[in-house]
């Protein structure tokens, strides 16, 4: 039933033979579109794509640069930190040695002072002892004379002989003392 209905009319048309107008309009539309694509579309498309890849590359480069800068800053910071640490250690060492020096100096000074004080005290003692000895000698002489006068009942005070006797006695005593000390 259907094949009879399929009335494909085969008249004098050959689809493989192009009509002149067909070729003409095909060429016209191709050339028109080609001009637009070549002059406008492709340059703009390439420009946009190039700009985009440049932007992406630029962004990557910028990021790389930032990273490098950060790394450099970190290195510098680390170097400074190390330097500061070394400096601190140096200062500490210096302070310690300074402190020791000061301590040693103070000790020395104290020893010197102590020695000085001791020496002056001894000198004073010595002087006082000498003074005491002198006054004692006079006292002892008069006391001995008084005692002797009392014993022998005579005044020996004004006698030159007596005085020289006392002096000789004392000198002997002193010599004796010195001999004892010398032993």
């Amino acid at each position, binding site marked *: 039933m*259907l094949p009879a209905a399929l009335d494909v*009319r085969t008249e004098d048309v050959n689809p493989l033979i*192009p009509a002149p107008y067909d070729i003409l309009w095909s060429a016209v539309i191709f050339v028109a*579109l080609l001009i637009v694509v070549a002059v406008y579309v492709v340059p703009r498309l390439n420009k946009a794509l190039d700009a985009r890849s440049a932007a992406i590359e630029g962004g990557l480069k910028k990021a790389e640069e930032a990273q490098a800068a950060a790394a450099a800053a970190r290195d510098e910071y680390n170097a400074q930190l190390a330097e500061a640490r070394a400096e601190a250690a140096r200062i500490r060492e210096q302070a310690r040695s300074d402190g020791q020096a000061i301590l040693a100096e103070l000790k020395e000074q104290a020893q010197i002072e102590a020695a000085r004080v001791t020496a002056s005290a001894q000198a004073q003692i010595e002087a006082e002892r000498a003074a005491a000895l002198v006054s004692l000698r006079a006292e002892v002489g008069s006391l001995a004379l008084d005692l002797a006068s009392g014993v022998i009942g005579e005044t020996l005070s004004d006698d030159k002989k007596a005085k020289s006797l006392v002096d000789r006695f004392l000198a002997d005593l002193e010599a004796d003392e010195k001999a004892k000390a010398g032993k």
Partner: protein
Amino acid sequence: MVRFTDDTDGGFHGPSLEEFFPPAIFFEGTPFELNRIMLIRILVTILLIVWLVIATRRMRIVPTRFQAANEFLLGFVRNNIVVETLGEKDGKRFMAPLMTMFFLILGLNLTGVIPFLNIAGTSVIGTPLVLAIVSYVMFIYAGIKKNGGRFFKNSLFPSGVPWFLYIIVTPIELISTFVLRPVTLTLRLLMNMVAGHMLLVLCFSATQFFFFTVLADGNLIGLLGIGSFAFGAVFTLFELLVAVLQAYVFTFLAAVYIQLALADEH
């Protein structure tokens, strides 16, 4: 009981080759004759130009949604067809004609399934033939520009073949390279579109016939129209696929021919 007449309204109109040669509308009898299909071609070209200009007018580094969609289409042709086949440098030289080829074929193919246009601009031989000639000229130009006279020697006398085999090989190469390439490009596109149109016309005219003639006469055989309509719908989707595929195949082959011509040795 069932009318099969062609001439009365409601009769069955089978697809015919005459549909590809509709009556002239303007300039009848001159080389500028404009019929329905020529007008469709011009309309498609104008739409393509408007779209391409708008799509690439203000391209930003960070694309809008509209730009990203257009860039996907343009980038598909640019990268997946042209640059992938020809490389970045040669690809740029042949970018514009190949891109034109792709979008023109795609646009003209799609009119086959667009309501009220309903016929592909590429289903008449002119456009496939002109584009095949463009491809032919391009690959011969590319070969001569690159290798001079050696292009023909390389094409017709492939190296590494014993000399006596040239008796067989050279005629084969001559026909396949310089005759069959443009012919197959033309016929593949043309016949795909002609056959697609025939199929759709057959399905939908049968549907029309079944529903409005047979079924209207009270004959339940007319319900077969449901089946023919379903076939038509499926073939419409299939034609969309064919439209894209043929545009891709044509442009890809044109690029491959250029690439072969640019190669130093075959």
